[in-house]
């Protein structure tokens, strides 16, 4: 069981809600993935309509916990404002904090991220920071009051999978007791299985599911891969070697070569 901010969840898959072909397909993907947490981005005009956001009604009707996010925010002020709006709309103190530093790569502005995290935790938010795999930044985020870390494994939406396994390994080793959720860069279920095998606690996905030919089937495929990766981690996988090792014992053979 995964525990984030004192909440127990069974599913180790967190699913984004953007860019599905339709809300019906999103709902089907949520159902088949068995996810218990979905992230939703809040744009200012989204909440400006007369019906108070029919899309948000649909999200609330999914019956899962909502983790609002500050996707697309490029400054501390904007992120803090969006987090407060999200708290009102979804009545939750959870916030997935994104402060984007670079328009093209969507790389987090880690300085702004730490500052915004400090402000928001000070106001009672439970912050899930989207960060890089930089250890020092991660330490600062913990100092700022974050109890979960969400490092990328590749740029958002890039579908490249883990581009720096060494960094992911040392990140996990450095923070053995902090829930670590890989956020961004996962393209395929095998990528998700890989980070889970490496001991990460959960995976957050959006584009890899929403952009698939059959999003609902892909959501289920990810759920299976994440469960398999988690099971493999607990089962303690082998470490790679640079030479062959016979899988059949050779004791008793007449001649050793």
């Amino acid at each position, binding site marked *: 069981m995964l525990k984030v901010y004192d909440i127990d969840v069974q599913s180790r898959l967190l699913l984004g809600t953007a860019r599905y*072909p*339709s*809300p*019906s*397909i999103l*709902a089907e993907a949520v159902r088949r993935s068995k996810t218990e947490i979905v992230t939703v981005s809040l*744009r200012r*005009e*989204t*909440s*400006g*309509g*007369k*019906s108070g*956001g*029919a*899309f948000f*009604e*649909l999200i609330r009707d999914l019956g899962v916990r909502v983790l609002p996010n500050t996707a697309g925010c490029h400054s501390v002020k904007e992120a803090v404002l969006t987090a407060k709006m999200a708290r009102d709309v979804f009545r939750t103190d959870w916030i997935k904090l994104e402060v984007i530093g670079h328009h093209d790569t969507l790389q987090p502005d880690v300085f702004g991220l730490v500052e915004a995290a400090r402000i928001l935790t000070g106001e009672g938010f439970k912050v899930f920071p989207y960060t890089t795999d930089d250890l020092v930044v991660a330490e600062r985020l913990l100092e700022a009051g974050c109890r979960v870390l969400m490092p990328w494994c590749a740029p958002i*939406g890039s579908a490249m999978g883990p581009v720096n396994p060494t960094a992911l390994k040392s990140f996990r080793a450095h923070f053995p007791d902090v829930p670590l959720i890989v956020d961004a860069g996962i393209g395929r279920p095998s990528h998700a299985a890989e980070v889970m095998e490496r001991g990460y606690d959960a995976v957050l996905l959006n*584009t890899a599911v929403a*952009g698939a*030919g059959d999003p609902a089937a892909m959501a289920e495929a990810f759920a299976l891969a994440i469960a398999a990766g988690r099971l493999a981690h607990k089962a303690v996988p082998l470490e790679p070697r640079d030479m062959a090792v016979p899988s059949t014992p050779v004791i008793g053979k007449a001649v050793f070569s």
Partner: protein
Amino acid sequence: MRILVKGAGVAGLTVAWQLYRHGFDVTIHERAEKVGQGASGFAGGMLAPWCERESAEEPVLTLGRLAADWWEAALPGHVQRRGTLVVAGGRDAGELDRFARRTSGWEWLDEQAIAALEPNLAGRFRKALFFRQEAHLDPRKALSALTAGLEEARMRFLFGPGDGAAHHDRVVDCTGAARIGHVPNLRGVRGEMLRLETSDISLSRPVRLLHPRHPIYIVPRERNHFMVGATMIESDDAGPITARSLMELLNAAYALHPAFGEARLVDTGAGIRPAYPDNLPQVTEEGDTLHVNGLYRHGFLLAPAMAGEVARRLLAGHAQPERMAS
């Protein structure tokens, strides 16, 4: 049998036209001052069901492939059957492969074939997808022409507040986004667009520029005008276009061809597309009212099929047309 059609956007006018053709006596009531004041007036007017199938479900293709013929029959000369060109920038070439995997009815074009089709795009893209069977029309001209045709046929138009006091037997509600909040699960999807004017470049057909974040289309119109659209935002806020959306649409137009950098920005617009959770339209019945709604971003593409469905239901419901079918 007298029919009151509420709403004079693409759905209402298409339904009115279809019912008039079946011999019904039709009155059209529109709350606004004139026709096409909702989302229809901001539409791209692309009759592109093969391209739309990239993210839409199968009915959009099966119903939408009949649209070009319907419009051509209703408004001869309005439909341009020149296909759709789909391109992607160098870094986004993978998007083109993905688009191809999810659609049908296309052929690959190389640089030379692109240049032959759209000389102004020569040398700008190494490959493209060409959807030969697709068509487009100018939405505002089409709506005006349908209105003129209906008026000529002595169908009545009522404008302004009220609900059209004329006596009627059945109502067809085509008021689209105005029903949001009254119909469960109907939501608004905001779309923003802009119009550019330049004589430095010409295009013969709609061009879609794929981009992982902001896919856009540019539809050539008469008099060196180009319609650039459209954003897709989960909201029923009908306020003016945001600076961010304007910037993104203009960026994409500039990426398609730098000549758009010198174009004049003629106007911008934002419309609310009504949509059901599966983003497919529906005809529903409630008392003596038929509702056509949920046309989403497929108004011109799917309104003809919905109009056909409305006519079938009214004819099947023992309704005798007032006049002989013309």
